[in-house]
């Protein structure tokens, strides 16, 4: 039997969706990026986390990109450990470069090389994402 689903998180008004600052002010929709490389530094800081990723350049050199995530507090509360994401772990990031043209991007989607998300809570914490079941990672 199907019931009316009166509203979902997708139906929230804009008042709920303000992130700490508008990413629209910070990132340029004309500069899409796909970054792949090892994590070289992680800053678990507020208001937003920054994951530093080393990326190969076309000319054979390397450069480090800073990828902006959300606040670390929710993840810490779900049982995230300091080494849940390891230095050297290769990640794939898609997002948009910052308007100031530095090597920074929003972490629109940050995954492991096989496409799996990371940081999902360990089971039994009662955290909302425990329901994700087989997608969980330690």
């Amino acid at each position, binding site marked *: 039997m199907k019931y009316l689903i009166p509203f*979902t998180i997708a139906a929230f008004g804009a008042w709920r969706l303000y992130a700490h600052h508008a990413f629209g002010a910070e990132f340029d929709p004309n500069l899409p990026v796909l970054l792949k490389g090892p994590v070289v530094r992680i800053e678990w800081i507020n208001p937003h986390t920054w994951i530093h990723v080393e990326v190969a350049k076309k000319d054979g050199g390397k450069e480090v990109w800073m990828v902006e995530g*959300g606040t670390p507090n929710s993840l810490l509360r779900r049982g995230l450990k300091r080494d849940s994401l390891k230095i050297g772990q290769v990640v794939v990031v898609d997002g948009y470069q910052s308007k100031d043209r530095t090597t920074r991007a929003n972490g629109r989607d940050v995954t492991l090389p096989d496409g799996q998300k990371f940081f999902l809570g360990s089971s039994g914490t009662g955290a909302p994402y425990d329901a994700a079941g087989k997608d969980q990672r330690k």
Partner: protein
Amino acid sequence: MLTLLTLLLAAAPPAATTGPRTADGHPDLSGMYDIATLTPLNRPGNVGDRMSLTEAEAKALAQATAALLAKNNAASDPNRKAPPSGGDGSAGPAGNVGGYNTLWVDTGTGAFKIDGQYRTSIVIEPANGRIPALTPEARAKGMALAKYNRPNRGDAFWITENLNPGPYDDPELRPTAERCLLAFGSSAGPPALPVMYNNLKQIVQTKDHVMILNEMVHDIRIVRLNSKHEPPEIRRWLGDSIGRWEGDTLVVDTTNFNDQPGLGNADRNLHVIERFTRIDDKTLRYKFTVEDPTVWTKPWTGEMVWPATDARIFEYACHEGNYSFAGILRGARILEADAIAKKKP
């Protein structure tokens, strides 16, 4: 004797609440609370004027939300390309570049339940569950700002359209949350409203003061009990809060806001009355009335629960890690230079 009894009965507060009490006999509201909920502030259009959901609807909502989160947290295409140039079509203030993975978001797992009902909105008065209309004055103010509100095209539209001042001309023109001054979405309040993440509150209570610590931006409200408001020239970001006990209910009255309270649209005339009452050992009822005669055509009232949690509040050193703000201003200077170069004949 009879007269004394009558007097005592007349003065008797409503039925005493259960739960811990302080040495001076008042309910002890101290503790940690997590106010994340899927119930929105305003009642969504598709539930009409209904104040509550049926059990089945509440269950369907929770299930649909869990399914949406699971879908968003499922694996992505490992061979995906960069998102489309010109933007990914996402709406809202994130504006066309998206945000970050859903796993950072924490908006609760269901609608909140109060008096046995799953509520469709936090607003309960007006009876339609929606914040009343703005005054003509507030509407005009909003219209004046609307010219800055547009899709993110990665351009300095304020240069090409000769808007003065431009929205990035001065750091102080940027939103207070972007500047780490106040939590966004009235997370700290008053009134305290649920937002996208960091919905934890901590209450610390003494005989003379009640402190409410908000996880977001580490905003701290200090309520002076049985006190008087500061003179009107003393203005604060979170207003000036005084409190008193009405029976087992803590009543907090807040005025003396500056020109930019956390609550959207509100101005310095904002006046908020909050009522905290223990429902049971694990839950507070949080009811508030908002009035601001220069902004809303009538007062409005909201109500929700504050469920206790075992979770802890983590540090929120917003300024310390706010790399974004400098980047936003620096980005605006670059886009301006591009626009000026294009303008030249």
